[in-house]
């Protein structure tokens, strides 16, 4: 017993001693770096033009065959989806095997086999290598395009579209791509259920017949197989495949935006906004800028060391991750950044993104950052080379894009040469900070207003169609009366309203088509005297309305009339009532609070108002201030129903009561703007002033 205590005490002493010797504040230095070996591969070309790339690696007893047809992107139009459907169909049966047979044979050897519109991938254990090649060839060369499977796939495609409708990331990429590339571009077109319905089996067949040719096909083989064996097997099963001419296409230019635009996709259930920010770039594979942009992107948002992550996640805690990326492409490339952030910080997050883009454009990165980014890239290349598939994809790129043989083996020295100036230059060239596309998928009601400062906001649905701003349900317990009470309070309180005995409001009125502004004067006196006059300098009074409780007279350039009909007079009575809204229930109006909507991004209670006469209008009361910010009514115009609306803004306090100093009446495309110059309260108007 004693001894045991002693040994453990001793052990403790020893470990404490060892610990004491170690200066933990000294960060270990690396051992000499090892060279990164890129590894070898073999390339063969068959007589029919088929290219074979083999990367031998016998670490694990498995092998993969990846066939790629190098074709131009296809714009599918009203049959969007037929190309990918054709790809799926390849797996649905061949002239030698039914789908059931294919399924059974693939699974029986524990293999996997996938098909796409321009590729087939087969992988499994090396001991089944010939079976794998034979299956690959059967699927790629002898598809039977069974009609029954075609119908099944269409059904699945439609379900797939349904399923994507509530997925915030699908919504985001659809709308983002549509804006970046345009609806008429293969990269920007969106698929709908209707498109799928339009696809015929013949479309799929002719796609396959037109595009699948050995002269543009590459098969990369990776794994535990000898290169010559691989070539022999492929020659055996693909050697007789006949070459043909492949169609090529031209593409519309991608949209160029004058300024930054904002797309909002409303998803009421969202607790986070999926943000995507970016622009198209002209950057083709092999471009010398690529390595520079890789460094710039690494510093900006290439990982958890990136500025975006450090700022938006680690400093602000807005998100789980914020990243950026770029893409080189033979047609058109892309720079983009994004994050999922909680609703209330959506606009703040966008500010930080743009700030980081601009910082990289305007300030040189530090030596330390530059070196760290390069080390990070070298490290990731080193790690990726653990997989023989990486060598294979490098080899394929060299072949496909006609890159120099030493493109990858020289990559590290080109990386080393990237300077701080290069980083700044590519940031300036490829980050279009003044004409970005910003897409936000989230709770429109909570995020839209904050996004307006970046550019015009357009709302889209899943199909890429524009929608109006979203509306929200009215919170439980909120009533029309609550809204009116809030309005009274916001105006200054009932007591202050009651103190207003008469009122004169003078404004200038900008009317489109009129060379000079008109002058407007509105006068009211309790209980119900009302006068409205509009005049233009040099032209005199253009329109005048007077209501005295018993009659209304309207006069203008075209003459004058008197209204005495009691029914018709009621509308004038309403106009003459002081702060009529505050008395709606007493005046016999019926009110219905329908939803929360938006007026130029501002949240507002939407109230349907029906006068005792049955005239309907819609009024909007700001959720934030309680003030009325808009009213809308529709009427029969000469060409069908029209909507007229009045927007109220710039409320200012006069004698304890808030008055809107700006009013805009819109009717169709026409807008009349009232700018209030003076509001005089209780100036002692006489009855005689109303004539």
């Amino acid at each position, binding site marked *: 017993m004693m001894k045991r205590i002693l040994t453990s005490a001793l052990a403790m002493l020893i470990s404490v001693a060892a610990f004491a010797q170690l200066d933990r504040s000294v960060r270990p230095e690396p*051992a000499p*770096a090892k060279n990164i070996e890129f590894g070898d591969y073999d390339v063969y070309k068959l007589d029919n033009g088929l290219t074979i790339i083999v990367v031998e690696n016998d*670490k*694990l007893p498995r092998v993969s065959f990846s066939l790629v047809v190098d074709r131009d992107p296809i714009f599918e139009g009203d049959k969007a989806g037929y190309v990918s459907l054709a790809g799926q169909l390849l797996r649905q049966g061949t002239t030698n095997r039914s789908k059931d047979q294919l399924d059974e044979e693939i699974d029986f050897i524990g*293999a996997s086999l996938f098909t796409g519109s321009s590729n087939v991938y087969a992988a499994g254990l090396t001991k089944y290598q010939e079976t794998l090649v034979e299956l690959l060839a059967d699927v790629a060369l002898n598809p039977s395009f069974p009609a029954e499977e075609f119908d099944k796939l269409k059904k699945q495609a439609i379900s797939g579209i349904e399923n994507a409708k509530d997925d915030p990331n699908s919504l985001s990429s659809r709308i983002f791509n549509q804006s970046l590339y345009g609806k008429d571009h293969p990269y920007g077109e969106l698929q709908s259920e209707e498109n799928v319905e339009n696809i015929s089996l013949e479309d799929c067949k002719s796609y396959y017949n037109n595009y699948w040719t050995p002269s543009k096909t590459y098969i990369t083989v990776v794994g535990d197989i000898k290169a010559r064996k691989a070539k022999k097997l492929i020659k055996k099963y693909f050697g007789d495949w006949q070459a043909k001419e492949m169609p090529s296409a031209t593409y519309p230019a991608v949209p160029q935006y004058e300024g930054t635009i904002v797309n909002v996709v409303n998803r009421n259930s969202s607790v*986070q906004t999926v943000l995507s920010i970016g622009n198209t770039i002209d950057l083709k594979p092999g471009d010398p800028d690529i390595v520079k942009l890789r460094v710039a992107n690494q510093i900006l948002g290439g990982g958890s*060391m990136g500025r975006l992550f450090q700022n938006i996640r680690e400093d602000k805690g807005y998100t789980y991750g914020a990243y950026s990326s770029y893409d080189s492409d033979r047609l058109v490339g892309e720079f983009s950044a994004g994050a999922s952030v909680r609703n209330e910080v959506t606009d703040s997050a966008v500010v930080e993104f743009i700030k980081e883009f601009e910082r990289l454009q305007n300030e040189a990165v530090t030596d330390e950052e530059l070196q760290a980014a390069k080390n990070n890239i070298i*490290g990731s290349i080193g790690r990726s080379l653990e997989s023989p598939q990486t060598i294979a994809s490098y080899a394929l790129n060299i072949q496909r894009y006609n890159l120099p043989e030493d493109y990858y083996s020289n990559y590290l020295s080109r990386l080393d040469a990237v300077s701080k100036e290069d980083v700044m230059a590519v940031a300036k060239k490829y980050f279009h900070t003044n004409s970005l596309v910003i897409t936000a998928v989230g709770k429109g009601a909570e995020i839209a207003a904050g996004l307006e400062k970046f550019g015009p906001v357009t709302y889209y649905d899943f199909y890429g169609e524009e929608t109006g701003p979203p509306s929200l349900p009215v919170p439980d317990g909120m009533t029309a009366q609550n809204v009116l009470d809030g309005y009274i309070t916001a105006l200054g309180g009932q007591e202050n309203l009651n103190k207003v005995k008469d009122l004169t409001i003078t404004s200038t009125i900008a009317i489109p088509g009129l060379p000079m502004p008109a002058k407007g004067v509105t006068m009211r006196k309790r209980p119900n005297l009302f006068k409205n006059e509009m005049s233009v300098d040099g032209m005199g009074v253009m329109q005048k309305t007077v209501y005295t409780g018993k009659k209304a007279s309207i006069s203008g350039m075209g003459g004058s009339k008197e209204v005495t009909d009691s029914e018709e007079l009621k509308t004038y009575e309403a106009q003459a009532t002081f702060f009529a809204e505050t008395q709606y229930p007493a005046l016999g109006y019926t009110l219905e609070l329908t939803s929360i909507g938006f007026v130029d991004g501002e949240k507002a209670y939407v109230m349907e108002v029906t006068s005792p006469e049955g005239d309907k209008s819609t009024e909007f009361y700001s959720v934030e201030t309680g003030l009325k910010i808009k009213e809308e009514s529709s009427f029969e115009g000469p060409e069908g129903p029209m909507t007229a609306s009045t927007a109220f803004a710039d409320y200012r306090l006069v004698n304890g009561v808030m008055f809107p100093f700006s009013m805009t009446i819109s009717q169709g495309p026409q807008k009349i703007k009232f700018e209030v110059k003076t509001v005089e309260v209780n100036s002692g108007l006489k009855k005689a002033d109303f004539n």
Partner: protein
Amino acid sequence: MKKKLLGLILLLGFGSAQAQTDIKFEEYDLPNGLHVILHEDHSTPIVAVSVLYHVGSKNEKEGRSGFAHFFEHLMFEGSPNIERGEYMKIVQANGGALNANTSFDRTYYYEILPSNQLELGLWLESERMLQATVDLEGVETQREVVKEEKRLRIDNQPYGSFQAKMFGAAFGDSYYGIPPIGTMEDLNAAETADFTDFYETFYVPNNATLSIAGDIDPKQAKAWIEKYFGGIPAGTKEIPRPTEEPAGLSGEVVDTVYDNIQLPGIIMGYRSPKQGTKEAYAMDMISTILSDGQSSRLYKSLVDDQQLGLVIQSFPFTLENAGVFITFGLANQGVDLNNFIAAIDTEIAKMTTEMISEKEYTKIQNQLENDFVSTNGSMAGIAESLADYHVYLGDANLINTEIEEYRNIDREFILEVAKKYLRPENRVVLVYLPKNEQ
């Protein structure tokens, strides 16, 4: 003649050779209880350094769900020698990658570094084990980050609530009843005192496994391990480690969830045996039969033949002390969910009444062999598997031999296990319907 002969030999070889893996490793314990596993492989100049702490959400106190995972986030905040926010930067600026994850049963940290940076990796992990900094600023920032992670992965995803509902129903108020992400309420409730206590209890060498795989010189590696980890004192607190299996279901649980989704879906979970048991291996095989590949029974019947579903997948979710055998399916547009469920039930009932065919048995053995061979393709994967096998099953060498466990299971046993577990009284059924059908 020679050529022909060779062909014959090849032909004989076809189908008979069974793929074997031979991953060599050594393992030992430091006096402070840290378990060390080393695997040497020089094919790429990289090394994976990992530490597995045997603590997960099942070790959390009541009212502190999500704590183990929250804590994982804090473990990147630094130490007296690593400034706040520097931990990730140091790794990446030196060409490495890093991450961590938290499950019901464990928390796992790893770096994949250029192999000349092994010492750096050991220093970093030893700082985390010895003296991680947990300050208020870090706690508050990471609390928000973790809440965003929950929103991203769960609250903002269609069908995202299934985890909380499934585990809640399958494991009741036991330690497996709340998924590792926890609840917003509990995340908000975590206090500084909780962190100190958690760190001192669980982040100790005697609760950790250091697993290293890659381009290493084992002698040098051991010297560095001693240098950085040897002086870390063993923990003195008792490590609470629940081992009793949570109580079983007292009957079928059916719940309907109205969610923001378009396609109705179904998630079934049968309570199943804990990992590493013969029965659990049999459940893996049942899952392979049901949904691995397009010839699998559920796929063939529901997706191909009857065209009822878009997706159907079963997977055995095994944990240290229990398991749930989950089947997840999305019905096709316009399909009555009841027909969909009935079709799943038919296939599952078949598993419990008929023995699988010889041919199916051979097929799943081939599929499992292919999966088994493919898992050991990376150093990071090897380091993780070695640590997992050691911690959960007490035998790191299962990385080479686990395939034998499957080979030793026969068709009769598969039927027996199916009968035992795939019973309606032993399951939770979550029905997901679009909100507009409510």
